[in-house]
């Protein structure tokens, strides 16, 4: 088990390195390809040659790409110093560099976004797990019933609805037409729990609706498969009550795939729910990412990509470990 964990962690780190290297390479290559200078991006409104040269030196844009990448990695691990003589900027570890467009340090910038994304993703996850799984299980147990058909029709509609449409539609209805909810204006939980909650209700529901639909379909399919398994028949043949058969024997293995998928979904979402955050003006990682991409703000793009990849890889890792814990066949193999 230990070597298994070590191998997985090692793989995860390699994946992260590859992701950053690829991202770094692409965004380094792109400005070159279209003939622009990243220093110009920093300068933004000016084109004073001295200023550009200063930035170029300070940021090390003249170095070969592998040196720049090396410095980037070093910054994450040990922090780094940007300097062009008199002007020294210290960027403590984990340093992800400075934003081209706002000139802010990327790390705190993104650290501020993480709680937003976290609130969105976790809140939605709770909702979609509860709704998706319970409807999926009920549908599977009452296959062909009215509940099953209604739930599955809704779920199919759910997976067919783009989140940017449901988002707009729900706020048009609940915020604008009915006025049940205020315009969303995110406040951190620590500052104003009430506003935090009201600003997240619609995003949660919107996001959860999509995922709940997927999870309901998935749960139903898994449960149906599990219910057809020989060991469930065995459990029944032992005379166990239906409660125990379903609740203990069928659910346990029927939901195992859900664990995997949930981990991956959550990981992906934590890297930024780009569409939902943008539709609802939630300044999370996805919002930040999109903005950064539009402004070619390489350090921020890199930072978000890294964090997103980290969450995905980390979630993969957790899923693998949890899987090993749930399923003795994996653990003891």
């Amino acid at each position, binding site marked *: 088990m230990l070597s298994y964990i070590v191998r997985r962690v090692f793989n995860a780190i390699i994946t992260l390195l590859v992701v950053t290297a690829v991202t770094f390479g692409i965004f380094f290559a792109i400005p070159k*390809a279209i003939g622009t200078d990243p220093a110009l991006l920093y300068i933004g409104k000016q084109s004073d040659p001295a200023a550009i040269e200063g930035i170029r030196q300070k940021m090390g844009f003249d170095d070969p790409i592998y040196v720049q990448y090396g410095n980037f990695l070093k910054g994450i691990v040990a922090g780094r110093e940007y300097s062009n003589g008199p002007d020294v900027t210290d960027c403590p570890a984990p340093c992800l560099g400075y934003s081209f467009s706002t000139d802010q340090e990327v790390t705190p910038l993104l650290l501020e976004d993480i709680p937003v994304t976290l609130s969105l993703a976790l809140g939605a996850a709770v909702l979609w797990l509860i709704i998706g799984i319970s409807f999926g299980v009920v549908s599977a147990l009452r296959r062909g019933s009215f509940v099953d058909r209604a739930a599955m029709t809704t779920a199919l509609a759910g997976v067919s609805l783009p989140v940017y449409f449901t988002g707009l539609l729900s706020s048009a209805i609940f915020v604008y037409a009915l006025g049940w909810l205020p315009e969303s204006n995110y406040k951190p939980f620590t500052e104003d729990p009430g506003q935090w909650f009201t600003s997240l209700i619609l995003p949660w529901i919107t996001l959860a609706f999509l995922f709940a639909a997927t999870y309901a379909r998935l749960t139903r399919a898994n449960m149906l*498969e599990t219910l057809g398994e020989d060991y469930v028949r065995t459990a029944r043949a032992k005379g166990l009550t239906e409660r125990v058969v379903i609740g203990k024997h069928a659910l346990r293995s029927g939901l195992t795939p859900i664990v995997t998928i949930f981990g991956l979904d959550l990981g992906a979402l934590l890297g930024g729910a*780009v569409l939902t955050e943008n539709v609802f003006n939630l300044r999370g990682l996805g919002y930040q990412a999109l903005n950064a*991409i539009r402004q070619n703000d390489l350090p921020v793009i890199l930072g978000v990509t890294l964090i997103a990849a980290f969450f995905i890889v980390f979630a993969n890792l957790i899923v693998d470990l949890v899987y090993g814990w749930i399923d003795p066949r994996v653990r003891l193999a």
Partner: protein
Amino acid sequence: MSLGPEASVTDEKTAPTADAADRPGEQAIAGRSLKQIAWRRLKKDKVAIAGACVVIFLIVVAILAPLLIKLLGHPIDEYHNDALDTELGTGLPKGALGGMSWEYLLGVEPQTGRDIFSRIIYGAQTTLTVAFLSAFLSTLFGTIFGLAAGFLGGWVDSVISRIMDFLLAFPQLLFAIALLSVLPDEFFGLGPRWSRVGVLIGVIGFFGWPYIGRIVRGQTLSLREREFVEASRSLGARSGRILFRELLPNLAAPILVYTTLIIPTNILTEAALSFLGVGIPPPNPSWGGMLSDAVQFYRIDPMYMIIPGSVIFITVLAFNLFGDGLRDALDPKAR
């Protein structure tokens, strides 16, 4: 497929639905060919057939777009200030429901007065082209690499599998946006619209192949061990023959099902990318682009949002219904 707008990264469609309870039935109808069985079941699945009808209708509409617009609409880039409120200066469509009338079947865009009906129809062209061709591309790559990985095994398998894992563990939507925002707008003299369509097909198709690839690989692996392949191998059949005569025909059903099912996902992805401003360049209409324009106006001109949104929804739903039906009919596990 996970490019899909904030959709579950997993492919829920891989979950088998075969229910053991039906097994007697399966045995009972054994003996008929899979094609016959599938067709019989599909025909009986009214919902799936309805989905298919909508799909066919949309394809016809997309093909006939220029004609339909001549008959029922206005050129997509024609401005109609007369259809807008200029008196108060709101720039909103005159009349209720976003300016719907016989003249403008689905109303007009605020601030431009362009005919929404025409733009929706032209959007269908773009969307369907992108969705179909990118699905085709994913399938092509997925099949080739999946087969290669599953059939050849060894280091080929490990390399391809690692690449697939890597692509799946990638913030794909972000990456697609970033890529799209820097790729050239025009090439091969295709004009901005079809150049972009080409780029979208490439990007969506590229990020989609690992999903098909994984499935094909898995199926190939299990088929490889099956008796009939073993048998033909022991009879000295060459690899090529085994691949094309034995494996591919048996992979056809799952490949068909998954290709059908990634089309709706691709539609959502295309719309999402257009919504985020990296899709088809204006003034060429796209459904996602229209929704993105509608963000400004949805509070005061909700129809402008509801129309493209509903069209996306109906299209995706139709494809999903048909795909689900096809899968149920062809489900290899039910054989």
